[in-house]
């Protein structure tokens, strides 16, 4: 099957970052995203997800490689200083390149 090379960016962050993050995704050129509610432990302590103040989300988005670069750069300069957040990218292959 003919597949196309894309980047998947995964962001795990506190739930308060939800709106600024989703705004940034669309500005960076994402055409869609998937969001999960998660819990975990990290640099800023346990996030038990028992009450909204301690809720955590994970967002996954598949993008063109250039858009993924833009997204990661803007995450670093705009959101990392403000929120408990990590992000990483990985290589993925998709069937319909035009969807991303």
């Amino acid at each position: 099957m003919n597949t196309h090379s894309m980047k998947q960016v995964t962001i795990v962050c506190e739930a308060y970052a939800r709106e600024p993050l989703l705004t940034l995704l669309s500005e960076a050129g994402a055409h869609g995203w998937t969001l999960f509610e998660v819990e975990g432990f990290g640099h800023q302590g346990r996030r038990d997800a028992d009450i909204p103040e301690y809720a955590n989300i994970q967002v996954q988005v598949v993008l063109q490689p250039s858009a993924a670069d833009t997204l990661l750069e803007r995450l670093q300069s705009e959101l990392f200083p403000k929120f408990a957040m990590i992000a990483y990218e990985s290589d993925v292959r998709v069937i319909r390149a035009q969807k991303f």
Partner: protein
Amino acid sequence: MNPDLLQAIQTNLLSPAVLFFLLGVTATLLKSDLKFPESLYITLTIYLLLAIGFKGGVAIHSAGLAKVWLPAVVSMALGAMIPLWVYPVLRHLGRFPPVDAAAISAHYGSVSAVTFIAAVNYLKESSISHEDYAAAFLAVMEAPAILVGVLLAKLGGTSGGDRKLGIVIHEAVVGRSILLLVGGLFAGWASGPKGAEVTAGFFIAPFQGVLALFLLEMGMVAARRFQDLKKVGVFLIAFGVLAPLINGTLGCWLGSLVGLSLGGCMLLGVLAASASYIAAPAAIRLSLPEANPTLYLTSALAITFPFNITLGLPIYLEIALYLGGSQP
């Protein structure tokens, strides 16, 4: 210590609401697998806020706005003033950075609805009447301190943000707790006693049970933060107990000045003493992201809230009595 006060503390500790709170604390300390889903926590807060707002609205309808406005304005001013003394104490005695001092002072000026509800419950169990429209004070005291706290941080030199003040006003005014409270107040006021009658089966009858269930969860939520107490330091732990006592006295005193009954004075004291852990954290996290959330959430949730629920309520009633709240 006054034997009446000891007796009152004992009575409070044996009320179902507080017993369930202590059960929640115990469950967490014993590492029980008991856990409420976040959605249930949110459902219970929606119910409690709407019910207390609605009941208060019906009471405003019966009492008339003329009676409510003066104590409401005084409550609002009190909420806005609390950060003004809390901030310098944290800044200079506690040596907190400006942004943390401002964030914590916003939480202590703002209010905890559940502490208020527990106080109403306590008055009921002690057969002391109060102004039923006091829920209006709760509603107007949530936002002002948050705004003052953010302004203090700006004055303290926290890096200015582009749209931050807009965000804080939006969060402080339409955040879920204020929206539900004010919405409930309006619905209760507009529909009056008739509205109370048709919704009594839902908003009044199961209320005590829902409160007990919620406090069970709050006991677990608070106890999960006990491990953070070592991170916040002795100063903030002492502050989390002393600030409520001072603010509570201030609230009781102002209540007696504007002519509230004994129960009303105590409730205003409780509101002043309580620290927000729903409205303020959301607004502060978005508008002052540089502030360390462990400090304000741990002090509000793991120190002040448990203190107020277990020992604070009888103490504030005693203070209100001493300051001359009239027994009706």
